């Protein structure tokens, strides 16, 4: 199973949101990191066919197992589960009613491969996302986190082969985030999961591969370990006073600032670092990678 992006581009007026992006997704979890406006949502919208490609060959292609997804049409959409960033609902529906409606829209009928009916699948999903107790209450009265869980449940409905999650853990408390992350990790064996987020720690825990998108292009890609290894010699810590922080921020990319007994410890990321800074070798993380590419 492969999802290929070949020279994928998209222009909105004079703004080129995506520039000739080429990448192949295979089963596994792909963390997609990028600042706001980097092109993450555009890429996702093109894959879900919620936005049209640029005309002609300029727009590039999206192929699933060698076939253009536009030609596959309904067959491709049948294997995609999508959770958008914006919380979109019919607020007067209950989660059960909403999922039943989505089941119809996804064309789910009869029993699935595991012999479960649609109702059983829905009940199971409601339990996974911990919404069984409020299955018949109006979504409009839910908290942000609860609405997020409803959205996730509908994306998982029908056991899609390609799961696209845009900020899936936004609004969830740490326990819920860990639960959802672990559940997604379990699913990844035979699925392509695209996980777009700003929460670097989510990707760090479960992503098999990470894509960093900046100004419509993939600026870096690799496993978390590979990306972290590339940061050797590019991360350091410096101790300073409060008065020095401003000057350092102006000259270098500054990550975490921690209070120490002898002052403030600033974590600096970059190709050129101050001589007095102490290189960090052991506990470099994806946040440093993010800072390096996006600050």
């Amino acid at each position, binding site marked *: 199973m492969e999802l290929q992006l070949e020279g994928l581009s998209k222009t909105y007026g004079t703004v080129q949101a995506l520039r000739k992006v080429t990448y192949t997704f295979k089963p596994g979890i792909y963390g997609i990191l990028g600042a706001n406006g980097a092109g993450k949502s555009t890429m996702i919208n093109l894959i879900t066919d*919620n936005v049209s490609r640029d005309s002609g060959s300029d727009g590039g292609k999206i192929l699933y197992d060698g076939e253009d997804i536009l030609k596959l049409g309904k067959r491709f959409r049948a294997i995609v589960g999508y959770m958008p960033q914006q919380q979109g609902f019919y607020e007067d529906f209950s989660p*059960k009613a909403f999922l039943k409606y989505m089941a119809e*829209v996804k064309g789910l009928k009869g029993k699935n491969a595991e012999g479960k009916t649609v109702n059983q699948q829905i009940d199971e999903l409601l339990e996974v996302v911990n919404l069984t107790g409020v299955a018949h*209450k109006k979504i409009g009265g839910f908290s942000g986190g609860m609405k997020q869980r409803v959205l996730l449940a509908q994306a998982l409905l029908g056991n899609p082969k390609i799961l696209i999650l845009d900020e899936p853990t936004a609004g969830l408390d740490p326990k819920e985030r860990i639960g959802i992350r672990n559940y997604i990790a379990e699913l990844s064996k035979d699925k392509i999961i695209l996980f777009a987020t700003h929460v670097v720690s989510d990707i760090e825990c479960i992503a098999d591969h990470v894509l960093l998108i900046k100004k419509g292009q993939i600026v870096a890609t690799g496993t978390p370990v590979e990306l972290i290894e590339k940061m050797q010699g590019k991360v350091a810590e410096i101790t300073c006073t409060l008065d020095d922080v401003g000057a350092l921020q102006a000259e270098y990319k500054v990550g975490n600032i921690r209070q120490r007994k002898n002052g403030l410890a600033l974590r600096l990321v970059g190709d050129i670092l101050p001589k007095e800074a102490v290189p960090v070798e052991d506990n470099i993380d994806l946040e440093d990678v993010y800072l390096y590419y996006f600050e």
Partner: protein
Amino acid sequence: MGEVKRVFHKKMWILIAVAVLGNLCLFLYSELAGRSFTEMFFAAGQYQKLVERYENMSLEQAQERLGTEFGNIRKYAKILKQENSQEETKNTAQNEMQNSRTAENAVQKQTSEELLSEVDEGSREMIAYHQSLTAQQQTQLELQLKQLRSKLEYLNGYEASIDTVMANAENMKRFRIFSKQNTFSYSNILRTAQDFERVQNVELKLDNDKGADAFVHYNLMYYIAAALMVAVIYSLFDERENGMWQIVHNTPNGRTVLALKRLLLLAGGSFAILFLLYGTTFLTAMLLYGGVKDLANPVQTFVDFGKFTYTLSKGAYILRLFFLSWFILAAFSIILWALFMAFRNRNHTLICTAAFVGIEILVYQKIEVQSVYNVFHYINVVSFLKISDLYSTYINWGFQNYVFSVFSVALFFLTVCGLFCGIFAVMRYAAMRPNTKVSLLSRMFTAVHGQYQRVFAKYPVVLKELHKLVITGKALWAVAALIIIAAYFSTTGQITFTDAQKEYDKMYLEHGGKEYGYIEDYVQERLEAYRQAQEALEEAAAAYEAGEIELKEYTAAVSVLQYQRQVVNTIQEYQSKLSYAEQIRETTGQEIWLISDRGYEEIFGKYSRQREFILILALVTAIMIIVSESIAMEYRTGMYQIVHSAPNGRAAVMRWKITACVVLTIGLTAAVYGIDIWNLHHIYGMPYLAAPALSLTFLENAWGGLAGHVSISGWLMILLLVRLVVALFTMTAAMLVSRAIGKKGNRALMPAVLAGVILLVWILHQVTQLV
């Protein structure tokens, strides 16, 4: 100011503009009273001229002059009809009737020329004017003369009526049961005398107060103003649903200060809204009927203000009425605001308010003014919204020495309620925390809703799409408005039939229909009796000339003939119908039934056109508003991306939406015309539905002779089908426009599309008038 801008946003102003426009249309519709605009303008101008004719005379002179001129008009018309009707007769019997009229006139010896030479100049002038009008205009003129006559009788009798009240008050004091001091009866007598003494010297005159009268008695604008204030108050509570409550409540001026500002907003908002509605309606009335200069005359000039005991001019009354209405509207708004404060969920509050108003309407209708419980009739939402009726009603309540008018009691009660509710609302707003325990009412609503959701989850997907249209898309308001319009317009503006017409209809019901031999025989018998009376008169004339009989016997024969002629006049409609039946039989070979045209003319004949136009316009507008949301909603709720990326999220969802829209359209059409037909059936009945449609004379040439092939029930079905086609066409257009526009500008272009629809319906209306 920020709060004003927040509440009175663009959509609210559009709503207010639509309400003002709608109010003016309703006012004009109520003044049309089944006439066309041309007829209405003509009548308005004519009334003004009539008033100008008599207003400079004393009231007694005017009454006498009008009576004489009116009498002469009718006499002349009757004589002229007799003289001219030979040309109009359709059968031998009527010809013979006219011949014998000549014999009768030989006794009476009065022609139209003779009458003209006998009457005064004024009457001649009026007769000439009357004769220059069309038949419909003549009827209008006669009606207005009757109205003026009644008015002059009232004006002339006003002083005497006041003197009578004063004298009665004096007389009643002599009765022991009323003369006991420190009782309400005694105090009321004193108070009544005191009140009417104020107006004892009011001098009334004839003037053109039609505009002011129509305006003062037009109450719908208060209902519309109240509905708009409900929308304003509903909008005040947006913060409970958009998350702003938590933020606002946490600011220094976000509690008591804000609540006080909102109190002022309600007072100011009700002023502005009422001013717009009141002012535009008043202007329209004045433009339509004139009479601005007559606003300086006493308000007692209005016929039903005979018991109004304040010395105010009409203009002053109208101004005072505005401020009273404003006060009442503002008080209502504050009370409603307090109710919204009592409940957390504004939709629950609306439901409770609607239920309360429903009860008030029921109580108002069922409790009579003479009932011991009439306090619930007068201190009632409906009563307050008929402010002028309440203010002008002279009824006193009280106990012992304390006597109060019903209006002052009602106003006091409202003021106290408003005051307490205002204080409660301000304190409650300051103290109420955004996040706290859910109320019992909310829990109840949640439980009920939960049960509904269990059932709803199992609905087929098309019903879910229908739910989305009506509930998720908040179209219930449009549906409710449509039902109210259908119920209102199918029960108002109807014509009531005269006693003679009712007698005809009774005959049709009892002896008409398919077998109408009884009516044929009835007609023949009367014609035969008339012929016999004619023969008898001819014999009597010959005998009288020969000196064989006295004048007494001759005039007796004339009297018999005159009586028989009156009887024959009453069967003219049957004769006309029988002729029509004969004509249809000859031209088409079809046997029609003998039935009345009247009720059906109201239901789908020429008198139904305005009602039809309004109903179809309301229906297509509601369909446009609801259906155009079907696609826009997916963007608005953010669901578009999810649905569009699903396998059945394109063509299949579109099919479901179309099916849901078709079901909705059929449902709304059935509801509107079901209500219409139900009400009309209740008012006029629908006898002989199986009769051939051609039995109704006004359908003879309708729609290219289509009526010749169906029954009346079939004709009704055809009309329903045509309306359904128009509705489905509108639905299709709305969906296409909505789809083409997509997520941008659905709402911005809605007014433009609606205007296009209105134009389309107007064109259709003009076309159908040609049929």
